[in-house]
């Protein structure tokens, strides 16, 4: 957390209402999001209890496991959930565009992709476990399950993994996204409570948000008091209707909160780089869809060494790009870098638009710009700079001191003798420059999986599904 966010939290606490820490929305919000609120049985790793889900806020689906310790009922529940989620996911695979690639065959990319929104990080973690516990199940032999169960398991695994990918919007958690855009007057720990965080953003804090009788937890864990006083007797009674209605009371409030969160986030204008990141999400989704249609085996229990290293490198690059893109998209995020001296903003006070460097054929246009700023500039001369106002341009810091910064534009000026209109900032224009740049970083050279060195366990065994996976015991 930066000092800027800390200050916003202090202000929120003082004023009794959350403060914005972003001026645009930094994630893609689907026109047709799927809200998914799973509940699990306390004390079990991945025993589903119920889920409320759907893409129509007026008509949520509620599926309940009326005897959570019964293996068959659990898989029947998973099949019910698959009956809603799979058609939703598959509805995005038909409309595609052809993407040309350099040095590779063109591929088909979905024009739009599914977006499954869960209440919190614990919801993502439970989705991952649900995926893990179902993707290896077999449709024949002992303990057969419906065909949709292992298929859903693979998709849930994919979505939960993608949620860990910086900047991805395929499976956002509501509390995370709200917390990225508003600073509440409570701690980060307390922000994990959806009702409490939404309270801060809309009407101000209230103790009701922490009262499980008024706002039940947003899952996947249920309130222990509810378990003891309502759910346990209901399960004891063996009345499916009673159990279903009991769980409905725990899910409906969160259902309303989820759509409220979506409305709040939808009201923010979308950041300029969001479409680019969503494009990557669409590409990734299409890749997964192809993978499944080609009959590839379910995701392995653990990544091999090379696959893990490659994944980590991809995530690091995505994180770096995400940080830079958010700063370029949003002056309030850029302000954090201005505070630490990695960026500065101010008014142009002087320009030399036709300044050149070199002689004869190597003569190049290098306009000079002098900016007056109140920001503390800690960048040394020679630093490469970029600017959100002219994203194609690159500049270099010449000198800085006494509130004045001189820079020269080094990239994106074209070949002409005079700059194109608008290419050089005018006197009086407000501009911002930063040393943050989203330069392409090559991927690290990693060996082929078959050439994994012995230090990393040697080549991984190829995954072959066997009966043991399918027969994995279930308590």
């Amino acid at each position, binding site marked *: 957390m930066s000092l800027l966010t800390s200050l916003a*939290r*202090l202000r929120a606490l003082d004023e009794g209402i959350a403060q914005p820490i972003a*001026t645009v929305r930094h994630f893609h919000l689907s026109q047709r999001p799927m809200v998914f609120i799973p509940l699990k049985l306390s*004390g079990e790793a991945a025993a589903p209890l119920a889920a409320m889900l759907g893409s129509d806020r007026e008509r949520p689906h509620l599926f309940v496991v009326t005897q959570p310790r019964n293996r068959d009922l659990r898989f029947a529940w998973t099949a019910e959930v698959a009956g809603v989620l799979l058609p939703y996911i598959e509805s995005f695979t038909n409309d595609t565009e052809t993407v040309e690639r350099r040095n590779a065959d063109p591929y088909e990319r979905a024009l739009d992709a599914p977006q499954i929104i869960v209440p919190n990080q614990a919801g993502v973690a439970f989705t991952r476990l649900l995926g893990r516990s179902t993707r290896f199940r077999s449709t024949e032999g002992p303990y057969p399950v419906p065909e949709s169960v292992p298929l859903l398991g693979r998709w849930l695994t994919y979505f939960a993994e993608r949620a860990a990918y910086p900047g991805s919007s395929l499976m956002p958690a509501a509390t995370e996204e709200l917390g990225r855009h508003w600073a509440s007057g409570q*701690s980060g720990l307390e922000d994990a409570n959806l009702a409490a965080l939404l309270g801060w953003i809309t009407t101000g804090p209230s103790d009701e948000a922490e009262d499980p009788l008024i706002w039940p937890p947003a899952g996947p864990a249920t309130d222990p008091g509810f378990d*003891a006083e309502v759910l*346990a007797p209901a399960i004891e009674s063996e009345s499916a209707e009673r159990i279903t209605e009991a769980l409905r009371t725990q899910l409906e409030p969160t259902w309303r909160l989820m759509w409220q969160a979506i409305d709040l986030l939808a009201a923010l204008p979308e950041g300029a780089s969001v479409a680019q990141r969503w494009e990557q999400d669409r590409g990734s989704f299409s890749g997964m869809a192809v993978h499944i249609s080609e009959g590839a085996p379910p995701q392995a229990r*653990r990544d091999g060494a090379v696959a893990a290293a490659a994944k980590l490198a991809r995530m690091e690059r995505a994180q770096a790009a995400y940080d830079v893109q958010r700063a370029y998209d949003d002056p*309030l995020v850029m302000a954090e870098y201005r505070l630490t001296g990695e960026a500065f903003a101010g008014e142009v006070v002087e320009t030399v638009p036709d300044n050149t460097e070199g002689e004869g054929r190597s003569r190049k246009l290098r306009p000079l710009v002098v900016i007056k700023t109140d920001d503390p500039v800690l960048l040394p001369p020679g630093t490469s700079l970029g600017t959100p106002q002219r994203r194609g341009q690159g500049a270099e810091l010449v000198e800085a001191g006494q509130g004045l910064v001189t820079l020269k534009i080094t990239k994106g000026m074209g070949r002409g003798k005079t700059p194109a209109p608008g290419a050089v900032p005018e006197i009086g224009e407000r501009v911002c420059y930063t040393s943050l740049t989203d330069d392409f970083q090559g991927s690290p050279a990693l060996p082929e999986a078959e050439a994994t060195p012995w230090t990393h366990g040697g080549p991984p065994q190829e995954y072959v599904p066997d009966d043991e996976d399918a027969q994995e015991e279930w*308590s």
Partner: protein
Amino acid sequence: MSGLKREGDHVHRLEALRGITPQQPHDARAIAALAANPGCTRRALMDGAGIDKDAAARHLGFPAPFGQSPFAITRGNMFEALVKADGCAELLRMLRELLGLPVAEVSYHDVENVGAHLRHAHTRALIDRAAREGQDAGTLYDHPLLSLDIAGHTAYLEPDVVAFQLGGRFHIVEIKSFAVIDGQADPSAVAAAARQAAVYVLALRNLLEELGHDPLKVSHDVVLVCPENFANRPVATLVDVRKQLAVLRRQLTRMTTLDRLLEELPDDLSFDLRPDEDGRPTRPVAELADALRRTTARYAPDCLSACDLCFFCRDEARQEGASDLLGRQVRDELGGVASVAEALGLADGTRDPAEGQEEIARLLRNAERLRRECLN
């Protein structure tokens, strides 16, 4: 541990703090939690005096937000019963693999068979004999009862199982019902189990030392038994608890230095709940709250998952407008500016920085300028 010896005055003062409220016995979980917020004087005093913080919080109208689901309790008991069934047969199978216990020569002692009041003495005798004879046979002690001195009071502790193996080492066995899935478990659950097991390791080491044996015969590697994947089949893992042991020792030693804290307290201060015959507290709530407020708490949001008094202290921090409410990160970033009003005053420029606050004041003013510029 000589630092844990009784010190007359200080014990007397702690007893006065508690008044007629019966002493709350510490269990391993409570002792492990002592190390959670070492800077909190209020907690140190209440724990030292053995006050039931949960009862106090309830009486104050700020009941703790904890509770365990009956499903989780059932599941925990079921799993423990499964591991311990038939004389710990399942446990033995795992220990053989993990620690190399000899197959044939393993005996099983259920200490509970001797009756509750004798359990501690019986455990002592059994452990003494095992350590003295250094027999080759592996032995499992079920339901042992250990003790540990906490600020002058004896706490009795019940580890799940103590295993004694070939080569003369004792291992604490901790049975937990959270799952290990593909070799990975919830890190916070593992950390809590490790902290709890460290309490048992320390208690057993103290016992050996008292009996004149080498305390290091108790291994710092505890055996954590959890269900594997989604089934009930248990899997055992060794967990090194040296770090947790060090933290625990430091904290327990610190508790014996309560004298300094006690000296600063007014003589008439008491945390007594004044329970009636049925154990219901009768002390006026305002009076108790007032007594608590005369000791300094160090509230942090982490308290919400560790301390029964958390809601009371959070309410106090709110009334004081303390920046602690926002978490340690914010507090650290503010570098010694404790109150919200002070920090905002520095940011607005309506308050002049005190000595040493110039740097943070400059940063806050700058941050305020930037926020205004971007939001207008």
